[in-house]
Every structure is written in structure tokens, then in C-alpha cells.
């Protein structure tokens, strides 16, 4: 750190600015007091002297002389001037030798330079003089030296200087101290940042101590660094995974082509080429899905969140997947009674929910059930994708969002292992594990019993809500945290999907086809 650095920080400049502001305001106050003191004292003197002269001009001469004498004896500080002149201007009595030349004899107060009365002083000093003409032609002159007033002014002025200068120095000193402290912290931050820039990503800015503004920023930067590290690691593992996942179809392709070429006959070569083309398609699909995830992640970071109707999103997905469920067959229901506006990105939400539904239909055995519910659950808009499929073993739940992860017991079903990572890329994983009760948390047990009894009469088995597997995705605005929840619930007993939810106002085309289609199709 250079020696001049504390003087260039914003803190120091702020301190200087405050010092100046404080000084100016103090000076203004002092000046006001100074001005008040000066004028008030002089005005008071003026008024007294004018009154006394007005009385003196009417008094008989001998009495006036006595009063003047009294005045001299009581004036210990030798500040009072008093004199009586005859009609030719010669002094008759008093301590003023002659009427000052520039003093009008009009009974009003004037400030003139007069000889100092005190023996220690030899020069002149300002004084207030009042002269009045007597009826006999003489002149009465009264005055008082402004020496005291001036002395007071002097004191006030000196106090101002003595007071303001230390105040400025104090402000500057505290500015330097604060700026030194800040500079020291900034220096640490600067050095840490440089280390991070040079590749030491584990380094973090110091953010301990109390929560001041600098720590606040440091903490935010640290969180940002955590996220960057996570993204970097993700990127790295994705690269590894792509290479790994493309290797097997490529190897299979190579073997097939080799074998086809070795066989010699055109027929066999053709078959081999077709097989190889299939492997190539598999590889291509994987690459496309990966690119899509990358695209989603970058889009999620920059997309603005608009109002989107979750119910509409679910309806779109439902329409897309209905034939697939019908063909399997799997009972497929949608319950989206009312518009459910949430902040979000329509296309991405469709993709997220479609992926969940895709999974649900894919992994649910024939004759099972898949349900989409879109309504306000608790106080949040929510989508629930429920299925009666095998679910995910507890020990695997934390892995399902990893790209290319395939659950052990469903490995025989075709898939890339990328679907859930795509969903996780669109939403944030809220919670994984058992969260219950699943579909209708606001309904009481009694209500559920009534519902199940109704189903029972319909020939369905009673419903026991015991989902063993759930995943919640939170789709929200990353800053305001407002948004929706997407739940995915697996392994729900089959007849759960046969419940007709109360309060279902609009039944769309889907609801009529709740029954499982005949398997003979």
C-alpha cells in the first residue's frame, strides 16, 4: 500500500467533505452570534444615550453639572464621555475638549473616533456620541466608548477560530483512521480476488465479524463464487459423461459395421448399416438433450419471468401424452380446475412437466395410473405428477438428478438418464424424500374416508395415501423467491388416481377418460 492511499479512498473524501460541511455550518452559527452581540450592544447604548441627552437638554445647568459629576465618579472603567459646551462651543464642563467636527448636534446617536479616556491608552477608539442643543444655546454631549463591545467581538471571533480549526482537524483525523481501516480490509479483499483470479477457486473473501456493508457484499461475492465452482464442476462432469455415454453407441456401431463388411453380402452389409444408424441416432439424441440442458440453464439465467398459467401448461402436456398413456395402457388423468398464474417461462415449464410425465408413463407398469394435478396446495400454486410406478429406492434419491444416472431396477427401459437433470435445470430441486400427504393436504381424514367410500361403491379399492417417494421442484424467480412447486410422487397406490376431486369446476376432455383402456387395444 502506498502512503498516499488512505487519502484517495472514498471514506477519506467523505470525511473531508463532512469536515467542511461541519465547519461551514459552525461558522455560520458563530457569525450570527457575533453579529447579534455586536449590533445588540451598540443599539442598547444608542437608546440609553439618546434618552439621557433628551432629558439633559431640558435640565437646569447646575443640576446637569451635578449629574455629570455623579456620572464620572461612578464610571470606574473610564468609558463614559460627558461634556457641556456654551453657545460658542467652548467647553464648560466635562472630559471632552471640543465638539467633534463631524458630529451633528441633532440628539441622535453617531459613531465617531474619540480620544481614549483610560490612562493606558493614548490613541483614539470608536465611541457612540449623542449631542443635543440646550435652550440657552449650549450643547450637551454624552458618549460611551465601544471598547468593551469591541473586546467582546474580539473574544467571539477568537473563539470561532479556536473552535473551528480543531473540529476540522478532528474530522480529518477520523477520516484518515476510518479510511485506513477500510483500506486494510479492501487490500485483503483485493489480494484474495487476485488469488481467485489466478485459479485458487477455494479461496473466499473474509466476511466474518458484524454485518456491515462491506461484509454484506463479500458474502454475496462468496455465494457467487460457490455457484461458479458448482457450475464449473458440473461442466467438467458433463464433459466426462458425454464422452462416456457416446463411447458405447460408437463402439457398438463400429462392431456392427465391421461385421457387416466382413460378411461380404450386400444384404448383411445393409442390415449392419441400419443397425449402426440406430446407434448413431441414440448418440445424436443424447447430444441433443445435453445441448438442450445447457441451453435451458443459460436461458433460465437470463430469461425474464412472465405470468404463465400452470393449468394451461399441464393441459398442453396432458394432450401430448394422452395417446401414449392410452397405448400402454395406463390410466391418465388431469385435474386443473382453475387458471393458476405463476411467474415463469411457458416453454420451460412445459418441458419440465412433460419430462416428469414422460418418466411417469414410461416407468409405470401397464394397468397403472398417472395423474397430473395443478392447483393451489397450501398457499402455493403447485403441480403434482403422481404415478403408481416402482418409485426410487431411498439410497438412490440423491443421484437421480445427476446427468446420465439410471436407476438400477429400470435399466432395461430405454432412456438417456437426462430427463430429470433437465427438470432440475429448469426448476430448483426443493426437496427430495417423503413429503406427505400428497395430493390434497387440505382435506381432512373424514373427507378422505368419504371419498374412498364413494370409490369403494364404484368398485374401486379404498385409497391409502402413503407415497413412498416424492420429489419437489421449486420453480421460482431466483431473487424474489416467488413461484410454484412441482411435486413428483411415485409409487402411490393405484386407485389414488380414481379419486374425483371435490371442487372440480371445469372438467376438460381428459377427465371423461379416467377408465383404464382395454388392454386388447
Amino acid at each position, binding site marked *: 500500500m502506498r502512503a498516499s492511499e488512505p487519502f484517495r479512498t472514498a471514506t477519506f473524501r467523505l470525511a473531508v467533505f463532512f469536515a467542511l460541511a461541519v465547519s461551514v455550518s459552525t461558522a455560520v452559527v458563530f457569525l450570527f452570534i457575533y453579529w447579534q452581540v455586536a449590533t445588540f450592544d451598540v443599539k442598547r447604548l444608542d437608546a440609553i444615550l439618546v434618552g439621557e441627552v433628551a432629558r439633559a437638554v431640558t435640565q437646569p445647568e447646575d443640576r446637569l453639572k451635578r449629574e455629570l459629576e455623579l456620572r464620572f465618579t461612578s464610571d470606574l472603567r473610564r468609558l463614559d464621555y460627558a461634556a457641556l459646551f456654551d453657545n460658542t462651543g467652548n467647553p464648560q464642563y466635562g472630559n471632552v475638549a471640543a465638539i467633534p467636527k463631524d458630529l451633528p448636534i441633532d440628539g441622535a446617536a453617531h459613531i465617531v473616533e474619540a480620544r481614549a479616556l483610560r490612562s493606558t491608552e493614548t490613541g483614539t477608539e470608536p465611541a457612540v456620541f449623542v449631542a443635543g442643543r440646550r435652550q440657552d444655546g449650549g450643547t450637551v454631549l454624552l458618549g460611551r466608548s465601544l471598547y468593551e463591545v469591541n473586546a467582546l467581538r474580539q473574544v467571539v471571533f477568537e473563539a470561532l477560530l479556536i473552535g473551528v480549526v480543531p473540529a476540522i482537524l478532528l474530522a480529518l483525523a477520523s477520516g484518515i483512521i476510518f479510511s485506513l481501516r477500510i483500506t486494510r480490509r479492501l487490500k485483503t479483499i483485493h489480494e484474495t480476488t487476485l488469488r481467485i483470479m489466478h485459479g485458487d477457486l477455494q479461496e473466499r473473501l473474509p466476511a466474518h465479524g458484524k454485518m456491515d456493508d462491506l461484509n454484506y457484499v463479500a458474502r454475496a461475492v462468496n455465494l457467487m463464487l460457490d455457484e461458479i465452482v458448482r457450475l464449473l464442476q458440473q461442466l467438467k462432469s458433463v464433459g466426462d459423461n458425454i464422452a462416456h455415454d457416446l463411447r458405447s453407441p460408437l463402439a457398438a456401431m463400429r462392431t456392427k459395421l465391421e461385421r457387416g463388411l466382413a460378411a461380404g453380402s450386400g444384404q448383411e452389409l445393409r442390415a449392419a448399416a441400419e443397425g449402426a444408424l440406430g446407434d448413431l441416432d441414440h448418440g445424436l439424441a443424447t447430444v441433443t438433450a445435453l445441448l438442450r440442458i445447457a441451453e435451458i440453464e443459460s436461458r433460465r439465467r437470463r430469461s425474464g419471468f412472465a405470468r404463465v398459467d400452470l393449468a394451461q401448461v399441464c393441459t*398442453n402436456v396432458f394432450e*401430448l401424452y394422452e*395417446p401414449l398413456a392410452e397405448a400402454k395402457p395406463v390410466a391418465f388423468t388431469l385435474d386443473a380446475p382453475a387458471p393458476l398464474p405463476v411467474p415463469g417461462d411457458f416453454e420451460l415449464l412445459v418441458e419440465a412437466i412433460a419430462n416428469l410425465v414422460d418418466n411417469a408413463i414410461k416407468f409405470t407398469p401397464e394397468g397403472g395410473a398417472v395423474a397430473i394435478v395443478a392447483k393451489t396446495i397450501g398457499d402455493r400454486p403447485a403441480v403434482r405428477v403422481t404415478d403408481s410406478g416402482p418409485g426410487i429406492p431411498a439410497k438412490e434419491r440423491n443421484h437421480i438428478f445427476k446427468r446420465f444416472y439410471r436407476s438400477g431396477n429400470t435399466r432395461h427401459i430405454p432412456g438417456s438418464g437426462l430427463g430429470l437433470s433437465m427438470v432440475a435445470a429448469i426448476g430448483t430441486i426443493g426437496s427430495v424424500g417423503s413429503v406427505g400427504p400428497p395430493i390434497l393436504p387440505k382435506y381432512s381424514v373424514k373427507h378422505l374416508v368419504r371419498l374412498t367410500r364413494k370409490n369403494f361403491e364404484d368398485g374401486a379399492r379404498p385409497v391409502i395415501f402413503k407415497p413412498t417417494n416424492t420429489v419437489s421442484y421449486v420453480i421460482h424467480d431466483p431473487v424474489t423467491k416467488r413461484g410454484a412447486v412441482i411435486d413428483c410422487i411415485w409409487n402411490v397406490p393405484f386407485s389414488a388416481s380414481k379419486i374425483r376431486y371435490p371442487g372440480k369446476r371445469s372438467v376438460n376432455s381428459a377427465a371423461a377418460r379416467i377408465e383404464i383402456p382395454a388392454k386388447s387395444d
Partner: protein
Amino acid sequence: MDELAARVEALLRRSSDARATTLQVGPLKLDLIARSASRGERALDLLPAEFKLLEYLMRHSGQTVTRTMLLEDVWHYRFMPRTNLVDVHIGKLRRKLDLPGDPPLIRSVRRSGFMLHAGE
């Protein structure tokens, strides 16, 4: 919003198809205004999604249409489900188009997609 989308779609159609309000491929006829479809004399009862799918196939008759193209252009979805989603939709449409005995109109193109051809 739907209104706007419909209008834009109509404008696009107008520019490419010289204001065609009906499409015809072989025995298939599609009335885009009345939203009705028929094969020869037989009227086809199609759901909106199926209508859109058929319309797309007819506009691209004689060309191979891939599954990705269908997903992106008919459903406007940009992801690749690994299930045979498109095949199922095509299968449903096929069953409605072809009664037993009719020559099949939608042909599967091995490994790539589908093609609607006029037959004959």
C-alpha cells in the same frame, strides 16, 4: 392470445399457400376453415391435435417428416422424449385415416420418420 396466434398462423398460411382454404392429397381433403377432414366420401372425426398433425403431414406430403420436426412444428416442444410419443400419435391418426382394406396413407420411413403420400 389464441386469437392473435390464429391470425398470425392464417397470415403465414396465406403467404405460402396462395390463400388455400382446403388441402388435398390423394383421397384426403382438409377444410381449414370448417376444420373438417374427409377421406374420399368418408368424413373423419379428428381431435384438434390430430387435425394439426394431419395438416402438417399434408403440407409436407411426399417429404419425409422426422419426429423432431413433428414435435417442434406441431406441438412446439423442443425436447426429445425417449418414449415413442410421436409414433403413438401417428398410430392413432393412422387408425382413423385407414379403415381395414384401405391402402395406408402414412408410411413409416425407417429410422427417420414418416411420409404422407397420395398412393397411386
